[in-house]
């Protein structure tokens, strides 16, 4: 099976700090991994995609890394804000069939 594992415990951090979320996968490395944000009662929203041959990808305050040796992706939010509070989902794609992790809930306290 192609599992995606995320820390199910909520991550609580102080405003202004860097939040780091972890995504681990099993079996072979996917060609790319994706990260989505989901707010309560809403559908997930795409944030970033990183390819297997890209070690790091950035978009404004967001940064994603991809380590094929550790079979892991890290998602960073720098200078976090209360508005960043949400659940963040990691996903791998197998011929357009997506496998999602259970998500990590981030709480940014003012």
């Amino acid at each position, binding site marked *: 099976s192609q599992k*995606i594992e995320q820390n*199910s415990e909520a991550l609580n951090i102080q405003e202004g700090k860097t939040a780091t979320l972890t995504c681990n996968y099993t079996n072979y490395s996917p060609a790319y991994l994706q990260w*989505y944000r989901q707010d309560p009662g809403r*559908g997930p929203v*795409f944030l970033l995609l990183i*390819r297997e041959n890209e070690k790091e990808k950035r978009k404004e305050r967001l940064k994603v890394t991809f380590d094929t040796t550790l079979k892991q992706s890290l998602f960073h939010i720098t200078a976090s804000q209360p508005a960043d509070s949400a659940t963040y*989902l990691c996903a791998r*794609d197998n011929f357009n069939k997506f496998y*999602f992790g259970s*998500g990590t809930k981030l709480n940014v306290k003012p």
Partner: protein
Amino acid sequence: DAGVTQSPTHLIKTRGQQVTLRCSPKSGHDTVSWYQQALGQGPQFIFQYYEEEERQRGNFPDRFSGHQFPNYSSELNVNALLLGDSALYLCASSLGRSGANVLTFGAGSRLTVL
């Protein structure tokens, strides 16, 4: 430019009943996928439609069926509802191309089975 729209937003059914959920994809997208999301879990892939045919299917029983229309909109049907079918049902659209595809999700239909 409208994104993915789903209807209804909420509905309540009883065990044994049947339900139909509807989805209109984002303009320009031709592929529709359906996901089931239980509380506290990530979305689970149900099936995908492209060119009006079911192209891929997840580990869901035949009680779950779907359809895609010529205008790319789609329906998800669930027969003989069980309590365990209570979940948020998400529709996602994308382009049916090889390589990296990004999903655009709707807000979902919250189904409660009593």
